[in-house]
Structure formats: C-alpha cells, structure tokens
C-alpha cells in the first residue's frame, strides 16, 4: 500500500498553471527525487502536499487518509513534515531551541523535547552548535538545521526542499550519507533537488516536472536518457558534479 499518493494535483494562480494534473505514489522506505527545471512547480507541489496551499484540483492521500486541504500543522502531526527551500529557522533562538520546537510535535515536556532534540542533533553532528543563535550559522549548518527541525517531529515522510543546493561537493557527500541513514531509520523521503550528484546517488525513483506537468516517472538511469527530460533541461545547467 502506497504511503503517500498524489492524485491529479493542480494549482492555478490567476491565469497561470503552476502545477497541472500531477500524480505519483511514494512507497514506504523509498527516496523519491522530484526534479525539473526552475519554475517547474516543484516547491508548489510540496506546498500543496504539506497543506501550505490549497490545490485547485486533485488530492493528496497520506496513509490512506485524504489530507487535502488540512492545515500544515495537522499534516505534520500526522507524520508528514516538510523543509523550506528558503530556510525558515527561528533566527533569534539557539540551534537547540530550534530543534526543540520540532520535538514538541511529539514530546509534551521540555525535558523530553530537549533530550530528543539533542539526540537528533548528535545524529546530525550539530551538538557543538547547540547554543549558537540560528542567525549566526553558516549556510551548511542552516541546511542541517532545517533537516534537524523536521526530523525532530518524528515524521514518517520527510519532504526535503533543495537541502544540498549551494553546498560544496564534500558537504553534499556528507548530506547524502546522512539522508541515506535517515531513510535507513525508517523515514520515507521525497526530495526536490537540482544537484544531480545527490539525486542520482539517493533516489530509488525520479519524478520530473516541467511547466507544472509530470513528464517522466521512473528509475534515475532511465531519466537521464529520456528525450523529454533531456529536452526540458536543455539550456539548464546540469550539475553533474
């Protein structure tokens, strides 16, 4: 039984179709890469799935429950958590406090939340940054913080939005290992990514969006050979770092 199903998802803004009849299913334990040229509608799709925007048409099913139109917090509490492409931390709070906010999704007391947050942070090698204010973090650390916060909510499905873009190849490699270990712990992942190195290394399945439509769904090796995918990316820089 598919864990997460997106069916005929459509979103129009005024006359513009940002997302058009997109459908795909995510199996438990999979890592799905959601790729496509800029403006393809990937982040909008995430917003629609996580409740930040209402679809004009179509549905989202999570664990057989129709979650279309639910509020973002309700969806998060059901086990689907997203990160933001433009990082949304709590800048004046410390790293630890940031992660604790995520921990409160499942832990009611401050002590339990702190313990869980420290747990998550040690898995992400962020413990030394615990007392630093989020606004003083480097880009790489901020990206980790985004993941840490989301992970602290103990999600079943994690929607990662461009968590490796802007990082050095070494940093990308580190995050790839991390993301794989998160999956190995039982979290299903859908990731939007431009950095092909990460996408190819991690994805079990790839969904390609172009102008809001799904133009490909399949294994990564087939994606790079598919003529429609290649054409969509012509003129786009493929980061095959």
């Amino acid at each position, binding site marked *: 039984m598919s864990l997460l199903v997106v069916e005929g998802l459509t979103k129009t803004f005024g006359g513009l179709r940002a997302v058009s009849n997109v459908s795909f299913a995510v199996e438990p334990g999979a890592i799905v890469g959601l790729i496509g040229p800029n403006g393809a509608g990937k982040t909008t799709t995430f917003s629609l799935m*996580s409740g*930040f925007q209402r679809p004009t048409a179509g549905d989202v099913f999570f664990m057989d429950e129709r979650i279309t139109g639910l*509020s*973002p*917090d*309700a969806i*998060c*509490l059901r086990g689907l*958590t*997203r*990160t*933001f492409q433009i990082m*949304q*931390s*709590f*800048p*004046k*709070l*410390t790293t*630890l*406090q940031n992660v*604790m*906010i*995520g921990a*409160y*999704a499942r832990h*009611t*007391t*401050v002590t339990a*939340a*702190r313990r869980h947050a420290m747990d998550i942070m040690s898995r992400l090698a962020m413990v030394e940054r615990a*007392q630093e*204010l989020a606004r003083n973090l480097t880009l790489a650390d901020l990206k980790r913080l985004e993941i840490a*916060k*989301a992970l*602290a*909510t103990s999600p079943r499905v994690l929607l990662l939005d461009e968590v490796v873009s802007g990082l050095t190849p070494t940093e990308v490699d580190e995050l790839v290992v991390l993301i794989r270990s998160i999956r190995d712990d039982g979290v299903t992942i859908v990731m939007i990514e431009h950095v092909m190195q990460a996408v190819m290394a991690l994805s079990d399945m790839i969904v390609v969006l172009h102008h809001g439509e799904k133009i490909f769904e399949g294994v990564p090796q087939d994606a790079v050979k598919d003529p429609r995918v290649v054409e969509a990316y012509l003129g786009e820089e493929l980061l095959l770092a």
Partner: protein
Amino acid sequence: MSVRALLTALVAGVVLLGLPRFLGEHHMHVIIQILLFAYLSLCWNILGGFAGQLSFGHALFMAAGAYTSTLLLLHAGISPWIGMIAGGVIAAALGLFIGYLSFRYGIKGTYFALVTLAFTEIARIVALNTPAIGGALGLYIPIQTDDFWHLKFIQKSHYYYVALAFLLVALAVNAWLERSAFGHRLVAIRENEDAAQALGINLLRYKLQATALSAFLTALGGTLFAHYVTFIDPHTLLNMNMALELTIYAIIGGVGTLWGPVLGALFLVPLAEGVRAAFGQSYAGIHLVIYGAVLIGVILFAPDGFIGVLRSIRELRPRRAPAAQSSEARS
C-alpha cells in the same frame, strides 16, 4: 538556583516587604502605580511579547475587569475577589472573540493591532452611551470600610502588599512561559509562523490561548485598579491614551522578556509623576508627551528596549572560555 540569585532574592524580599515603613503616602502612591502598571504590562507581555501579537486592546480587558467587579459589587454586594474572576472570564471571552475573528484569517502584525484598537473604540462609545453601567459619568466605589474582602483599605501600604502579590503572580506566569513547552511554542509562532506551522504548531489554538490568558490576568488588574482609584469611567479606561500606554512599558523595557515590563514601569511611572509635579496637575495626559518621546527614542536607538541595552553591555564585557557562554541561552 545559584547562591547569588538566592541571596539577591532574599535581600529584595526583605526590602520589598519593609518598604512601606520608610515611605510616606505620596511615595507609596507612586510605588503602587509602578506595581500596577508593571503587573498590567507583564500580562500584556503574554500576548504582545511572548506570542508577538501587538495588542492595543488591553485597555478593553482591563475595563472589562474593572466594570464587571464594580457592577457586581454595587448591585449584588459581591466581593471584588470573586468579581474579578467574573471580570477575567468576560475579558477572556472578549479576547477569544476578537482573537478568533482576527487570527482565523491570519490577521497579524500592524493590522491586528489596529483591529484591537477598533474594538476598544467600539467599547468606549458603547460604554459612554450605556447609563446602566454609568455612561459618561462613570461609577464610584463608595465603600468606606477598611476591609480586605472589599479590597478597600485606608492605609496605602495594604494596597501595596496586594499589588506586590499581583506582581509576583504575573512574574511567575511570565517565568513559566519562559520555561514551558507552551511558552516555547508561542515564541516559535512569534519568530516564524510558517516554520512553526510546518513543525506541527496550530497557530490559531495557541494564539487564542495566549489571548485568553493575557486578557484574564489583565482584567484582574483592572479590578485592583478600580478599587485603588475608586472611580472608573470610559474616558479614563477606554480612551486611546490608555490603550497605547499599556503597551509602552513592555516595549520600552524589553518586549517578551521577564523583567522588561518591570523595568519599563520602574522607569516611566516616576517620570510621569515628575512631569505631573512639574506642570502642576494640569491636563491628564501630559506625561504621555514624555512617554511618546521615550518611545521614539527607544525605537530609533534601542529597539530591544532596556533589556536589550543591558544585554549588549554584557556582551561587550571580556569573554571567558566559550563553554561558559551557555548560560546566555536558556533551553
């Protein structure tokens, strides 16, 4: 709690408890006002500081408390200690109503502030035109006793101790907010609503809870205020000056902090008294010229308030080993 903190608390306790013995009636009056406004702004701080929803509606909550307990006393002889609870409930209901209308559509920031101001103005006009609650003439609390049960004392020092107790309660609530999951969630909402939502925090629910708590406690202060000044009317309680004034203490002292509102009141109330003394009791509201000027100065030069200035000074001091800095962030 460290030894130093304990000792400070002890000394402070002794000083505060013994204060009335050394001060005359006029000084007691000023101190009581400091305590009252510190209390009110700590209550405001719950919604305006921790939850980050700037509200000009707290005059309304204060008035709800004052009017409810006074009317219950005048018409049914009910003690203000019970009346204030009723007032608190009514204020909380008003807060929930206004909050629900506003928050369910994500009205926030400056727009929310103006919405609360509009409601305060509605209340003012309605109160002015409702003779049943005193109308423009207001209500007097005519009790001549010296009586705890009626919250009416001859000696100012008794009011002082009551006000001090209120302040301690408000400080306790604020301190709890600083350390509790509920408070942390409010701060998350304040710092970044989208991020908070994405992590499972229901904005409406928590904002409403903060509003209800803040309104309830503010109303209690309204009752105390009413019994101290023994006269309430829409012009004093519900005019825009009061609505604005209630926010200023926390903003100048440091919004969202534990001691900010107290510092604000400590600084501004004596200042206002000084202004009044200098201008010989002329028109009510003169002190607000000074408050306004201080507010402008704070926004321009020290937007985090006095607490922010104190923190900056602390950060400028020579640092010890990095590990020792962990006392700064309270987790």
